[in-house]
Each structure stands twice: as C-alpha cells, then as structure tokens.
C-alpha cells in the first residue's frame, strides 16, 4: 500500500493555472492595441513593451527582496498583464522613463508591498497611472493626434522610437508636432462656453463621435465581449459601469445638451471601454460577490461621470476605479449572498 498516494478530495481539477487567465485577458486586449496602433501610431507598442519589461524586472527584484523564489511569481504572468494595461494607458510618445516610474509604483508599491498577487487593495496599473498623471502632467497629457483628423501628422516607426527614447526625432522635431488635444480635452475645455454644435465642429469629432477614439473603444468592447464569452470575467461590473454612465449622460444631456456631452461621447471616447472591461473587472481589487460587483460598477460609473463633468481631469477611469477599490471591502461586507437554506422562501414546488 506504500505506493498509493494520499491526497484530499477532489481528485480532479479543470486547472489551467492563473497564468492561463492572465494570458487570455492579455489576448483580449489585442483588438484595442491594434486600434491604438492604427490611429495613434506605433508609440503604444513601445510603451507596452517597456512597461512589461519594467514590470517583470521590478516584480523579480521585489520577490527576491522578500526572500522568495522569483520564478513562481513570474510564471503567473500577472506582472506582464499589469505592464500591458499600463502601457495601453500611457500616451504613445511619452518618454521611456515614464513607464519605468509607473511600473515601480504599480508593481513595487501597489502590488508587492501589499503582499503580491491577490493581496493588493488597489489596481496596480491604475496606481501607476495616477502617480504618473499627478507627477508628470505634461508628459501624461500629450496624446498623439488620431489619424484621419485634419492637421494631424503621424510619427513613423523610427521617429516614434526616437521620440520615446530620446525625446526628439532624427530631424530634431520634438513631440509637439505629433500631439493634439483629445476629444475629452476639447469637451472639458469648452463645454461651458460653446454650444453642442460648435463643440462637435472641432476636428477631433466627426458625425458626433470622437474620431479614432470611437474605434478604439469599439475594439476594447470586442475584447471585453471575448472575456465575457470565455467567462474570464463576470458581466456585473462592466455592464453596471457602462449602464450607469449611459443613464447619467443621457439624463444630463437630454436636459442641457450644450453643457453635458452625449452618452455616445461618454461611452466611446477616452478609456471608457478599456476601463469597463480590463480595469474595473480586475478581480483582485474589485468587490467579490455578483451583487458587490454590480454596486462596484455603478460606483465607478457615477464617479467617472462626476469627475469628467465637474472635476479637473478630462478622463477619470483611474480615479473612479481607485476610489471604488477603497470601497470594495465594505461592499463585500454587505453583499454576502444568501446561502442555500438561509431565509429560504417556502415557495410551492409545482
């Protein structure tokens, strides 16, 4: 009998490993990444690669410093995914050290100091993003001009690479030649002074939608639908978040279209879809029960709308998500599902 193993049930596992979840989520960002590359040039590719590189490096150093073997921690691919998500959020032509600083805060502080994967209170990528946005407002608000907008010129592969690593192209041009206020910047700057028609006459808009951003958001939405289809994330947080934004934007827009942007602009510009499916769904820092995730999504949607409309930042996914991360443990406390047999209705069976 000595040859038989003794283990606890269950003796079967669907398995797959945490890394499979991470890699599938990463794969789901591909349409969005491609759309970003198409409209905003190859810069995002450098940002993503840089962030992933620094993410893995900092994760390895932190795990070593904590006296643990680095390989198992790296194998779960969570640092790669965090890097990918931050890289997608950074302006395409931002200097290389932006990603280094961002990942230091994302992985080093928000993740490893809290105990590593699964123990972090805040979404690591969003902590990195907010630190960068507050510390380096200039670098973090210079978005490339989207292709197809009058007056926009795109940096090619070589130019983009040189801009990211040296701050200037071979010809000596700076980043300014390639950037432009984003659609949400335009809304924020002018919504109190211009009418809706005047606003939508800006080159950043076309037929009432934000050029480039609309497609990027559609692409992230497609990736999100892939996540839902593969059951890699639950629908609760994204649907609640998008629904809340849509309802709020619709109500305010219907009431005063000159002062409040339309639901179409809110839902399909900036980081809305990316945030809904890839940030608000981070299981570690989100609420955990289905009902909790609904409330979490509603909270993110409300905060996003409030900050975009009355705050001093044009986009607000990171702030809204981080604030709701803070509320997640409280939500968990009050959204424990009714377990089988507790307060059950004695409904008739037939």
């Amino acid at each position, binding site marked *: 009998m000595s040859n038989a193993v003794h283990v606890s049930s269950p003796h079967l596992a669907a398995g797959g490993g945490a890394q499979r979840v991470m890699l599938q989520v990463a794969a789901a960002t591909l349409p969005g990444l491609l759309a970003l590359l198409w409209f905003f040039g190859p810069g995002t590719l450098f940002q993503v690669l840089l962030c992933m590189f620094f993410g893995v490096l900092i994760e390895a150093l932190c795990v070593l410093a904590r006296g643990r073997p680095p390989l198992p921690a790296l194998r779960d691919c969570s640092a790669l995914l965090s890097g990918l998500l931050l890289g997608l959020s950074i302006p395409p032509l931002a200097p290389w050290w932006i990603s280094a600083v961002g990942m230091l805060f994302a992985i080093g502080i928000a993740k490893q100091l809290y105990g590593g994967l699964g123990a972090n209170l805040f979404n690591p990528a969003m902590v990195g993003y907010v630190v960068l946005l507050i510390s380096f407002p200039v670098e973090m608000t210079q978005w490339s001009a989207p292709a197809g907008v009058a007056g926009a010129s795109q940096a090619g592969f070589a130019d983009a690479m040189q801009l990211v690593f040296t701050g200037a192209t071979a010809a000596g041009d700076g980043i300014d030649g390639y950037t432009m206020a984003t659609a949400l910047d335009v809304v924020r700057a002018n919504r109190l002074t211009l009418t809706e028609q005047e606003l939508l006459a800006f080159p950043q808009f076309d037929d009432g939608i934000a050029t480039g951003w609309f497609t990027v958001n559609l692409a992230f939405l497609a990736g999100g639908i892939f996540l839902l289809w593969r059951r890699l994330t639950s629908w609760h947080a994204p649907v609640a978040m998008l629904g809340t934004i849509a309802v709020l934007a619709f109500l305010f827009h219907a009431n005063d279209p000159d002062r409040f942007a339309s639901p179409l602009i809110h839902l399909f510009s900036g980081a809305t879809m990316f945030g809904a499916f890839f940030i608000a769904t981070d299981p570690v820092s*989100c609420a955990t029960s289905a009902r909790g995730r609904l409330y979490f999504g509603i909270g993110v949607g409300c905060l996003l709308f409030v900050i975009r409309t009355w705050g001093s930042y044009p986009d607000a996914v990171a702030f809204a998500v981080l604030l709701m991360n803070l509320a997640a443990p409280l939500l968990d406390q009050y959204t424990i599902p009714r377990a089988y047999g507790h307060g059950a209705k004695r409904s008739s069976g037939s």
Partner: protein
Amino acid sequence: MNMIARAFGWGVHPPENKSQSTAAPIQQAPVPSRLILPVQQHIGAPAEAVVEVGQRVRKGEVIAEASGFVSAPVHAPSSGTVTAICEHAVPHPSGLAETCILIETDGLDEWAERKPLADHATQSPVALLEHIRGCGVAGLGGAGFPTAVKLGSGARSNIEFLLLNGVECEPYITADDRLMAERARAVLDGAGLLARLVRPKRTLVVIEDNKPDAIRALRAAADGANVEIVVIPTKYPSGGEKQTIQIVTGREVPHGGIPADIGVICLNVGTAVAVRDAVIDGTPLISRIVTLTGNALGRRGNFEVLLGTPIGELLRHCALEDDRLDRLIMGGPMMGFTLPSRDLPVVKTTNCILASAVGELRTPGPEQPCIRCGLCADACPARLLPQQLYWYARASEFERAEKHHLFDCIECGACAYVCPSNIPLVQYYRYAKGEIRHAEQERIKAERSRERFESRKERLAREEAEKEARRKERREAAKRKAQEKSGGDDAAPALAPEIAAAVERVRQKKAARQRDDESDTGNADGSGS
C-alpha cells in the same frame, strides 16, 4: 406539470468516465474467506455485538443489535464462524479503528430463515417501519443514515414529495445507474413501499440525462404506476440531497433543518431496493452494489459485494495492476477519500472503489495565489463565497468564516475543481471546520468545568452552613437542657447567691496565687488567671 427540473447556474462538468464500468451487467463478487463487519456502518450510535467469539452464524443472522433510536443492526453476510470481536481499521480518511466483528466464512453461504413481512400490503405502517429497522437498512447513497429513522420523521410530517435519488453525479460511479437499468421493477416496488409509509402527494425518481438505459428501463416499468421519472441535466453536484431537492422542487432545506421540514423525503434508489428486498424477500442489508473502476484495474464493472468483504480481495478479483496504481479511493474522484490500507471492509456506504493509474487523476500542483476570479463562487451549489472562506480559513479568522456560512459547505469540491490557482480549497474548509468544532468543544468543556467548580463551591458553602446550623441547634438544645435540669427560670435566683459566693472565692484564691508568682518570677506566666 411534468418536467419540473429547474435551470441552475452552479455546478461543474468534470469528465464523466462512466463508460468504463457500464459495459457489463452487475456481477456477483465471490464470497471472501474473511468478513470484517464494523458495528458502525451508519450515522448514529454503533450497534452492539450479540454474538460471541467461536459462535457459528448463518447468513442473514443478526450479529449486532441497534442501540438507541438512531442506530441500525448488522447482519452476517454469509455463514461462518465469528473469530474475533476487536478493533479493526475501518474505511475512514484517518484510518480510524473501530469495533468490528470478524467472521471466517465456511463457503456454504447457508441462509438463516428469511422472514419476509407477511401480507406487507395490509400491514400497518408501524409494522413496516419496524421490519425495515430490523433489517438494518441505511442510506446507501453515501451518508448511511438509518432509513427507518428518516422514514419515521417523514411519516410524522406532511410530505408532498418523495424523491428517489438516482442522479449519481459523481464521475466514474455507475452503481445506481446499473441498478436502475437492471432492477427498475425493484426500484419502483421499493418506491411503492416507501410511499405507503410517508404518503407523499407525488413520488419522483430523479435521474441525470446521462443514463439513457436506466431512464428507459424505469419509464417502461413505471408505465401505469404512480411514479414520475424526472430527468435532469448532467451537472456535478446535482445529486447532493439538498441540490436534488432544490432542482426538482425549487425548495431549499432550511439551514439546520431536514428535508421533511419542507415536505420532502429523499432516498437513494439503492436504498429503495434494499427496502423492497427486506420487506418482500426478507433479505436484510448484507450486500450492496459497488463500482470497481479506474485504469489500474484489469477488470472494471459493478459488483454485488457482501458487506465486510476486504477491499484487497475485491481488487484481486478485479485484476489490480499494482505497478500502475496511483491512488486508491473510496467513493468518487470529487468527494472520495484515499484509503490508508487495503485491509478495509466494504461497508453500507461504499458505492465505489476507484483504483486510478498514474496520470489519471489530478496531481496536486503548486498552490498559486488566489486571484479572486470568482469561478469558485459561480460553481458553488450552496451559494457561498469560497474565495472569502479560503481567505478567512487561511488567516484563522473563523468567526468571519462562520459569518460567511462555512458550515453550509457540503465539501463537494466544485470550487477546488475550477480553481485556476490549484488551491485545495476543500482542505482549507475542513481545517477551519475542525478548528471551530474543536474550539466549541473546548468552550463547552470549560463551561462545564466552570459550572462544576461553581456548584462545588456552592455545595461546600451549603454544607458549611448546614453544619453551622446544626452546631447552633446543638448549642441551643444544650442550653435548653441545662435550663430544664436546673428547674427552670424561677429556680435560678435562689441559687444565685451561692454561685456568686463560690465564684468570688475562686477569684480571690487565684488573685492571691498570682501575686505570689509575680513576686517570684516576674510576670512570666502570670497570665494563668
């Protein structure tokens, strides 16, 4: 309404692996040379041995009597001689030893007189229930609850649904499947007897849709009978009693309650057949159908096995390839436990022996951190939050684990099955439950000793007070007696001058002596007065 199975979101779809053991009909396992019969094969109080070492027993004879209300007797599965009544390892995850009756069989398999319940159709429910109790029938689905006790509670309640559970959702196991396919008539006869006892409004046999033979056989046999065959989608763990009830009736067994509380009685189909055999044939529960399966066995299938048969003998009968064996499990791969030895008997609750080959079952991989993906919560049939329970169990925050309904966990393993991080979740819950139960016992023990201590203190104080009261009583009595002796109150003044004079004399004498002492030795012992 005919189809009453409800859609349900929870559950998992592990590979079924049932075809390995369904090819052949149920075979009779050989009578082993030695039988090991634990006196406890059921939930409740162990039975008490009523045979002696050296005694010859015949097949079907009672060898241990039920003791107490929730208990069940044990019968000799074959004829032979009792060789010992001693502690022997029983099938339990811990390799626990319990009192067992060991019988050396004589190969004659000679029956004692079988006593079917005569005219069972006209017998009173009480007589029927007593007969079932006397035949030692216990739930064959897994828990082994004495059937007569369950039926008794049903007979007292207002039962709407009698459910015969033929769901058998555990992978690999096909014992109920084959039983229903081959003895559909017996299942329905059993159902009829049970219905007489609990008088339900509806009697249903519940089967998963992956057992077409059984469904066909039952439907054919049920034609005209007052029994409905309900087919539910295949999903683990829909065969758990609470889950089956929920799927079929939409009702939930209340926390801390029993199915009878919501008008439901649920029994395994094998139990129904055992009831039928007991009543109609007079056969006590001495054998059961066991699935022998797993890639380490050369011969796989279902066997009618005598209770007490050593598992080692069964494995030999099924051509176990020792060098291929990875683990030996009693029960299925989702809830079964690995056996610490082969010298263990088949008992009333043994539905399957799974001898897996290397690579067939999960090898526990390195545990990764929980990423709170929530797949476990989606799978949980009790609607718990396994990810939170895991967190609290790990951090020994048992109070919060209990608040998250830890004790409603049925340990089905669906959460651990889906966990992408390879976390052995069920093990964490078992640990937490154990710790909480232990702490509770400690608390009760401490409470008892405190009560004992306080009642002792009280008793001592009471005794002291009584003693004091008695002392006082005696003093009073003595005083009264003295007074009576001296002739009462009016006599005292007459004597007083004489006594006073005597006292005065003594005092003066003492004073004189004291003065002498003081002049001799100072004040050393002058306090004698």
